[in-house]
C-alpha cells in the first residue's frame, strides 16, 4: 500500500488504481446510486475494503460502495497540511516557572479531520495558542519525554520520568506538571510517589477524559488547574489533578497513592479511595481540605529512587481459582505476587498448597482487598490466619494497584524479603493510613430520596 492509497486495500484499492486516482484526488464518482463529488480521504486501516471515503464540499464525509462505482474522474488534487499555530508564550520574572513533562497524553490537540489523526499541541507556543490563560499562571516550559498511550506506560517510562523530575528540581523549577493518559495515571502516580521522595515542589499529574478537540473538553480546565497547583500550591507531593464533579466547577487534588480511576468515561472518574482528597483547585487557586501534607520547600533536595522489578504481578482472586495459576507464576520466575482477595483478604483452600510452594520458592506474596475500600484483616477468620501462616503478608489498606507498584519498586532495590517487607509495610506517601476517616467511604446510593434531594441541589 502506497501513501497515494493510504488505508485502502482489496476491492477499494483496485478501483482507485483502475481509475488512476488516489488519496487527495478531487473526484466526480459516477455510481449506480448517483454522482458524488468530493476529495478522496485516507481510510482507516480498521475499516472495510469495500468503501471509498469522500469529503464533500459541505464538510461532511461519506462512503461509497466501490461495487456501485461505474466511473471516477479526477478533477484535480487538494492535499491538506495542518499545523497548530504557535504564539510565543509570554513570560515574566514574577511568575513561577513550571515544567510540563509530556508522556503522550494529549492535553491540547486538534483532530486533522482529513486524516483522522490527532495532532497534539504540546510546545508552550502551541499550548498558549490553545489555552491562553496559562500565561496568567506561570512561565511554562515543556519537554516531551515520550509519546506512548497510557496503557503502554511501564517501568522504563516510570524511571525516566522520575529522573527527569529530579533534574528539573535540581535546576530550580517551581512546580512540575505531567501530562498523562488517564487509563493508567494512578499506576504512574504511585510509581512516582515511591521513586520521587521528599520533593520540595508540587508534582501534578493531569490528563483529560474528553479530547481537547471538543468544545466541552475537560482538557483546558484540567491544565489550568494543574499549572495553578504546580505554580502556587503549598502541597509538595505527587498528585493527580482531575475534575471533582462532572460539572465545569473545580478540580480535585488526589494523593498519588490513594487515587483510582473509577469510571470508564466520566469526567469525574478519579476518586480518592479510603480517605479524602488533598485539596480542591479552581483557576483562583488551591484550597487544601486537610493539613497533613508535605509542604513546599525552598531547598532543592529530592530523593530519586528509580527501581522496578518487572517480574511482579497483580492477581485478582475469584472463586474456583485453581492452584496452577500461582504455580505457573512461580514457574515463570515471578518474584512477587500481589493478590486482590475477597472480603477481608481471602482466597480459597485449593490454592493453599500453591501458596506454600511459592513461599518456599522465595516469592513475596502480599494480600490486598478487591473491595478497594477497607483494610485487609486476616485475623478475623481462620482462613486469614491460615494464609498468614503460609506466608501471605497483609498490606493494610493499600490499594491493589499501589501494592503492585510498591512491591515491584521494593523488589527492584533488594531481594532480601525481610527488607522488602519493611519497605512494603512502612508508609511512604500515604499508601497505608493508620485511620480510615468516616467520610473516606462514600458511594451514595442513587434513588434514595435524601440522595435525590441532595442531587437536585448540588451540581453533579
Amino acid at each position: 500500500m502506497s501513501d497515494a492509497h493510504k488505508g485502502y486495500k482489496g476491492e477499494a484499492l483496485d478501483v482507485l488504481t483502475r481509475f488512476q486516482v488516489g488519496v487527495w484526488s478531487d473526484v466526480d464518482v459516477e455510481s449506480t446510486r448517483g454522482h458524488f463529488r468530493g476529495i478522496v480521504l485516507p481510510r482507516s486501516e480498521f475499516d472495510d475494503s469495500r468503501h471509498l471515503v469522500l469529503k464533500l464540499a459541505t464538510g461532511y464525509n461519506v462512503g461509497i460502495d466501490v461495487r456501485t462505482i461505474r466511473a471516477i474522474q479526477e478533477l484535480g488534487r487538494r492535499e491538506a497540511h495542518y499545523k497548530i499555530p504557535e504564539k510565543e508564550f509570554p513570560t515574566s520574572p514574577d511568575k513561577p516557572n513550571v515544567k510540563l513533562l509530556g508522556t503522550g497524553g494529549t492535553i491540547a490537540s486538534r483532530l486533522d479531520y482529513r486524516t483522522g489523526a490527532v495532532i497534539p499541541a504540546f510546545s508552550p507556543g502551541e499550548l498558549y495558542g490553545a489555552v491562553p490563560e496559562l500565561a496568567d499562571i506561570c512561565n511554562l516550559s515543556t519537554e516531551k519525554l515520550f509519546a506512548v498511550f497510557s496503557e503502554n506506560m511501564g517501568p522504563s517510562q516510570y524511571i525516566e520520568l522520575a529522573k527527569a523530575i529530579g533534574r528539573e528540581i535540581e535546576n530550580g523549577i517551581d512546580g512540575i506538571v505531567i501530562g498523562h493518559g488517564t487509563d493508567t495515571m494512578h499506576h504512574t502516580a504511585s510509581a512516582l510517589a515511591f521513586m520521587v521522595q521528599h520533593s520540595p515542589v508540587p508534582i501534578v499529574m493531569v490528563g483529560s477524559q474528553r479530547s481537547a478537540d471538543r468544545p466541552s473538553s475537560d482538557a483546558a480546565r484540567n491544565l489550568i488547574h494543574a499549572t495553578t497547583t504546580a505554580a502556587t500550591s503549598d502541597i509538595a507531593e505527587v498528585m493527580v489533578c482531575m475534575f471533582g464533579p462532572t460539572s465545569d466547577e473545580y478540580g480535585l487534588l488526589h494523593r498519588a497513592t490513594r487515587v483510582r480511576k473509577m469510571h470508564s468515561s466520566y469526567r469525574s472518574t478519579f476518586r480518592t479511595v479510603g480517605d479524602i482528597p488533598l485539596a480542591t483547585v479552581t483557576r483562583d487557586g488551591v484550597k487544601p481540605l486537610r493539613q497533613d501534607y508535605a509542604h513546599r520547600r525552598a531547598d532543592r533536595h529530592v530523593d530519586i529512587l528509580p527501581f522496578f522489578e518487572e517480574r511482579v504481578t497483580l492477581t485478582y482472586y475469584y472463586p474456583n481459582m485453581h492452584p496452577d495459576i500461582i504455580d505457573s507464576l512461580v514457574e515463570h520466575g515471578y518474584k512477587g505476587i500481589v493478590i486482590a482477595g475477597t472480603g477481608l483478604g481471602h482466597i480459597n483452600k485449593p490454592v493453599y498448597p500453591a501458596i506454600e510452594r511459592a513461599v518456599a520458592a522465595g516469592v513475596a506474596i502480599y494480600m490486598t482487598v478487591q473491595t478497594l475500600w477497607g483494610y485487609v484483616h486476616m485475623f478475623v477468620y481462620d482462613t486469614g490466619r491460615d494464609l498468614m501462616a503460609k506466608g501471605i503478608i497483609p498490606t493494610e489498606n493499600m490499594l491493589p494497584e499501589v501494592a503492585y507498584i510498591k512491591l515491584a519498586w521494593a523488589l527492584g532495590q533488594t531481594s532480601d524479603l525481610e527488607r522488602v517487607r519493611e519497605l512494603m509495610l512502612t508508609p511512604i506517601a500515604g499508601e497505608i493510613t493508620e485511620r480510615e476517616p468516616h467520610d473516606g467511604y462514600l458511594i451514595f446510593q442513587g434513588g434514595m430520596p435524601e440522595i435525590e434531594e441532595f442531587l437536585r441541589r448540588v451540581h453533579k
Partner: protein
Amino acid sequence: MKKDDAISENPDSHNLLGYVRRAEATQETYRTLGFRCGLEVHQQLRTTKKLFCRCPAGHYQDGDDYDAQLVRHMRPTLSELGEYDGTALMEYKTKKNIIYRIKGETACTYDIDDTPPFAVNRQAIDIAIEVALLLNTSIVGELHIARKQYLDGSIPTGFQRTAIIGIDGHLPVAGKRVGVRQLSVEEDSCREVSDVGHERTYTTDRLGMPLIETVTEPELLTPDEAAEAANYIRYLARSTRHVNVGIGAAREDVNVSVEGGTRVEIKGVQHIRWIPELTHNEAFRQKALLLIRDELRRRVSAPTAWTATHVPLGDADRHLVDGIVPSTASAVIFRLPRFGGLLSFFTNPGRTFADEFSDRLKVVACIAVPNLAHPDQPASAISPAAWRTLAIRVGAKSNDGVVLVWGPAADLPTAVDTLVERCRLAFQGVPNETRKGLPNGTTIFERVLPGPDRMYPDTDSAPIPIEEEAIERTRARLPESVDRRMAALRAWSAPEDVHAYILRRDLSPTLAWLVERKVDSAFAATLLGHNVRHAMGAREIDVERVRWVIVEAAERDLTREILRLLVPLALLEPAATFDDLLGRVGYRKATPKEIRAQIARCAKAFVARHPEPEARVRALMGCIRPLAMGNVPLRDTAAWVEEATR
C-alpha cells in the same frame, strides 16, 4: 426604546429602502431585491429510542421538572486552519454558565457527554433512507458520523453528531424543480429553559432524539415559494408515517440573502406560516444594511482606519440619564465618527439600525435590554440638552453618531468590543449571522454564522454501510409521492381548503381508499378535511377506525350524509360500538315511505308557522333531517320537502 411606529421614526430611510408590507409585495419586489432562500427542515423521527443511546424517545417534561443539574462551559477549539471560528470566539466571549437539567427517565450519561455513543439507532436510519428516496437523492454507500460544532451550549458535547444519508435530490415547487442539497440524520439538541445574564439553562429531554435534516438549494425566489417548499417537505416526511408531529417536532432554519447581501440563517422557525413574513422582512433588513454601508462608504474614505472612541459616563453626568440608566449600572458614551443619523435607519417594522447593536450587546455581552440609547431616537427620555452635554464629553461632532451603552461594570469591556466590531461590520454590509425569528415577522441576532470548519469526523463511531438490500426493501414500500397525491386531490375535485390538511395529516391513502369504495371523492375529501378536522384538531387520527365506520355503514346500506356525524364521533369515542354511535347521532331506521309520511305530517304545521316559502323549506328540512339522515339521500329528502311545502 419606542418600537411601535418605527416606520415613522425615520421616514426618509423608510422611503429610501422602498419597504413595502408583504401584502403589497409582488414577484417584482423580490426579483428587484434579488431574493434567494434555501431551507433546512428538521423533522423528528418517531422511534422508540434516541439516536445514539438507549433512552426512550419522545418523552418530555416541564423545564422545572428535573433530578439533577450540571454545568459546562463551551471552549472554542482550533479550526482546521489554526484559526478560531467566529462563532466560537463570540460564544466564548459571552462566558456563559451553561446549566443542564437532567431527568432520570429521559437522559443518561451519554446525554451529558460522560459516556461515548452507542451503536446508531437502525430504526432511525431506515426512516431516513425512506425520506432520502422520496427526495430523489443519491444515497451514500456508508454513513460517516460527523461532529458539527455548536458552542451555544445547546448540546452538552459542544457538537451534534450527524451523518449524510443522501445528496443531490430534488422536489417540485411552484412548477419547477428545486434542488435538495442533502438529507442527513442527526441528534436533536436541548430545549432552552431560560437565558438570563451569564446563565443559560437547558433541559435535556429532547436531546439526542433522532432528526432528519433536509437542506434545499437556495433556489426559492419568493417568500411564498419558501413556504410551499417547507410544506412539501413536511407532507413528504409525514407520508412515511414514521415522524413525530406536534409542537417542536418539525422546525425550519431559513436561509435568506438578497443581491449584494450575505446568507443569513433564521433559526428554529416553529411554524411554516411564519416563513413568508420572516423572509420578506429579512430581505429588506439586508437591503437596509447595504444602503447604510453605501452611505458609510460615501462618508468615510478609509474604512479600515475608522475607529470609535468612548469615555465612561462620569458621576457628575449621571443625573442627565436618570430613569434611563439604572443606578446599579455603569455606562459608556461612544462617539461613532460619521455615523450621524444612521442609527435610526429603518430596517424592519419596529426596528432600526440601532437594534443591530442592542441585540449583540444582549447576546455577546449578556446585558439585558434596554442597554443602549442614542439621540436620534424620537422618543428618547434623555433631553436634547443632555445629549449635547454627552456629545461634548466624548468629543462628538455634528455628523457623528453618539451612543450611550450601560450594563454591569464587568460586562462593559465586552460591550465596548462588541459595539466597535459591529460598527466595523457595517462597512461591509450584511454580517454573517444566525437570527431568531419572532412571531411578529422580525428577527433578532442570535449568533455569528459558523463557518464550514466546524465539521469533524466522530472518532467515537465507525462507518455504517448502507446495503443495497436495505435500500431496495425501503423502496418497495415507499408511499406515493407528494406531487402525485397533490395531483390526485385536484383530480378528485377535493376543495382547495382541504388539501393542506389531508396532506399534512397523511390522509391521502385513506381518501384513496374511500374513492376506491365508490364514495364520492369530493364528499370524501370534505368528510376528512372538514368534519374530521373540526372534530379532531391536532389529535392523532385512527384511520383504521375511519375505515371501519365506512364498512359498517355500507353493510347497513346507510346513505353517505350520516358519515359526517358518525366518523368524527367514532374517532372521538374510540370505544363505542357501531350501534352506540348510531344511537348517539339519533339514527332510527325508516323507509322512504315513512319519511314521506312524516314530511306530510309536519308540513301542515310548518305552513302555518312559516308564511315565507324558503324559510318554510329550511325549517322543515331541519325537522326531518335527523330521521332522513342515513336512510335516504338528503337530496331526495330535500325534493320531497320542496314538494310537500309547495
